[in-house]
C-alpha cells in the first residue's frame, strides 16, 4: 500500500498541480490563444504567400517574401529608424522616469498634484496627441515661438521638416505621452524601499544624490526591467503618432517598421509582403526582449 502510494503520488501530484494551475490560467490563456496568438500564426502563414488580402486565391511563394525583404533597402531604413526611435524613447522614459519618480516619492507638498499633471498626457487619445504635436512642431508653432521668447531663437528649426530632427522630435512626443506611466510604475516600485534606509543614509551624511545612487537605483532594478520591456515594446509597435503627424516622412525619415508594414500590407493591398514585415518586426522585438531579460536574470543571480 505504502509503496504503491509513494509510486503513484508524483504523477497524481503533477496532474493535480496542472489542474490547479490550469484553472487559474485558463481564461487568460484561452482568450490570448484564440484572439491574439493564433491570428499571429496566421499572419506567419500569409507571409509565405503572395496575396492582396482580397482575392480568394493565394499564391504560395515559400520564403520568397523574406528573400525580397532582406534585399529591400526601405525595410532596412525602417529597421534602423525603429532602433533609433526605440532607443531614444527608452532612454527618456527610464532615465527621466526614475528621477521624477524619486522626487515624487519624497514627502513633498503637492505631490499628488504633480503626479496627476504628469499622468495627464497618458490619458489623451493618440489622435489628439498627434494633432497637438503637429501644432507644437510647426515652423511657427509653440516650440519655436517659445524658444524665441526665451532668447533661444537660434535653436528654432523646422522640426518635422528636417531629415535629421524629425525622428528624435517625434520620439520625444511619444515619450511625452508615455512618461507618466513609467513614473507611476517606478513609484510603485519605490514603495518597497524602506524609508529607514534613507534616514540612516542621512545620519551618515549622505547627500540626496548619493542616496539616490546607492539606495534608490539598486532598489528599482526589478521595476526597471518592467518599464524597459513595456516602453520598448510600446515603442516598437507605435503607429498612431507617426501616422497622424508625418506618415513616415519627410521622405522616409520617420518610417518605422510599424508604418512600413501598414503601407505595404494594408494601403498597397500587399498582405503577403506586409505580413513578412510584421513577422520580422515580431521576431526582432521578441529576440531583443529575450536577450535583455536573460541578461537581467543572470545579473540578478
Amino acid at each position: 500500500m505504502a509503496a504503491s502510494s509513494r509510486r503513484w503520488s508524483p504523477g497524481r501530484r503533477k496532474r493535480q498541480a496542472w489542474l490547479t494551475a490550469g484553472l487559474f490560467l485558463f481564461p487568460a490563456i484561452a482568450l490570448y490563444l484564440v484572439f491574439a496568438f493564433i491570428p499571429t500564426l496566421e499572419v506567419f502563414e500569409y507571409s509565405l504567400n503572395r496575396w492582396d488580402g482580397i482575392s480568394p486565391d493565394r499564391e504560395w511563394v515559400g520564403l520568397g517574401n523574406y528573400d525580397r525583404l532582406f534585399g529591400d533597402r526601405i525595410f532596412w531604413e525602417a529597421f534602423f529608424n525603429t532602433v533609433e526611435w526605440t532607443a531614444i524613447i527608452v532612454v527618456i522614459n527610464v532615465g527621466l522616469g526614475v528621477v521624477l519618480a524619486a522626487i515624487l516619492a519624497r514627502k513633498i507638498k503637492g505631490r499628488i498634484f504633480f503626479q496627476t499633471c504628469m499622468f495627464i498626457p497618458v490619458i489623451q487619445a493618440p489622435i489628439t496627441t498627434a494633432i497637438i504635436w503637429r501644432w507644437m512642431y510647426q515652423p511657427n508653432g509653440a516650440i519655436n515661438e517659445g524658444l524665441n521668447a526665451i532668447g533661444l531663437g537660434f535653436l528654432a528649426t523646422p522640426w518635422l521638416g528636417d531629415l535629421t530632427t524629425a525622428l528624435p522630435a517625434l520620439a520625444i512626443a511619444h515619450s511625452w505621452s508615455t512618461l507618466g506611466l513609467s513614473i507611476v510604475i517606478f513609484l510603485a516600485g519605490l514603495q518597497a524601499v524602506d524609508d529607514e534606509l534613507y534616514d540612516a543614509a542621512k545620519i551618515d551624511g549622505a547627500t540626496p544624490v548619493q542616496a539616490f545612487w546607492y539606495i534608490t537605483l539598486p532598489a528599482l532594478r526589478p521595476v526597471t526591467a518592467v518599464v524597459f520591456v513595456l516602453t520598448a515594446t510600446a515603442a516598437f509597435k507605435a503607429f498612431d503618432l507617426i501616422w497622424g503627424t508625418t506618415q513616415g516622412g519627410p521622405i522616409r525619415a520617420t518610417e518605422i517598421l510599424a508604418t512600413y508594414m501598414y503601407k505595404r500590407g494594408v494601403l498597397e493591398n500587399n498582405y503577403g509582403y506586409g505580413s513578412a514585415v510584421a513577422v520580422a518586426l515580431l521576431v526582432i522585438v521578441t529576440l531583443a526582449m529575450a536577450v535583455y531579460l536573460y541578461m537581467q536574470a543572470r545579473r540578478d543571480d
Partner: protein
Amino acid sequence: MSRKPLVYGLLTLVSLLMLAPLLMTAFTSLKPAEELVSPPWVPPLAPTFEHFVTTWIDANFNTYFLNSVIISTVDALVMIVIASAAAYALTFLKFPGKPLIYALLLAGLMIPPTAIILPLYVTEQRLGLLNTHLGVILADLALAVPIFIFLMSAYFRRIPKELRDAARVDGASEIQVYWRVILPISTPAIITTGLLEFLWSWNDLLLRLLFLTQDNLRTLTVGMLFFQGTQTRDISGLTSAAMIMAIPIIIIFIIFQRHFVQGMTQGAVK
C-alpha cells in the same frame, strides 16, 4: 533646504509641459468660430460651449459615450480577474511547462494589432462576434492580457511566500488563498490594472472601427474620427470631442489616485 526651490522649479516646469497641450485643446474647444484663427495657446476671448452641445447631440456622442463606458468598464473588471488569476498561478504555483507559458505571453507583448487585423476579423466573423460589444471586449482582453499578467506577477513576487504558505498550512485551498489572502493586499496592482485597461480600451480605435459598423454600437474614438477627414478637419468638433473623452478619465484617475496612494501604504508588506 536650498535645493527645495530647485526641486519645485523642475516639477513645475515638467508639469507645465505636460499640461500645456491639454490646455491648448481646451482653449480651442471653447473658441467661437471667429476666434479659431488665433494660435492655440491664446485663450478664448468669448468662451462658448456650443461645440460641446453640437458634438454631444448632433454627432451622437451620447450613444458613443455609453458604449465606451460599457466596453471599458467590462474590460477593466474582467482584466483584473483573469490577469491576477494567471499571475497567481505563474508566481505561486509549481507546475511543469511554466517557462513555455512565460515565453508564449512574452511573445504576446510584441504583437502589433495592426498586423493581425485580417485574421482577427475572420476569427470574430466565424464566432459570430462581429457587431457585438463582446467581440471587441474579448479581443481587447486577449491583446492586453500579457502586459497585465507581467505587471501583476511583478507585484505578487514582492509578497513574501510565507504569507501564502501559512494560509495553505491552515487548510485554505488555492482559490481561497488567491481570493482572500493575495487579492486583498494587492489593491495597488488591481487599481493599476483596472485603470490602465480602462484607459487603453477607452482610447482604442482600430478594433472598434473594424468590428462595430452599426452606429448604435460604436464608441467615442470612432465618433471622433468623423471630425478628421483626409483633407480637412473640424477642429472645434475634434477638440470638443477630445475633451469629452479626456474629462471622465481625468476624474477617474484623480479619484483612484487617492486610493492608489492609500492602498500602497496600507498594502505594503514588510
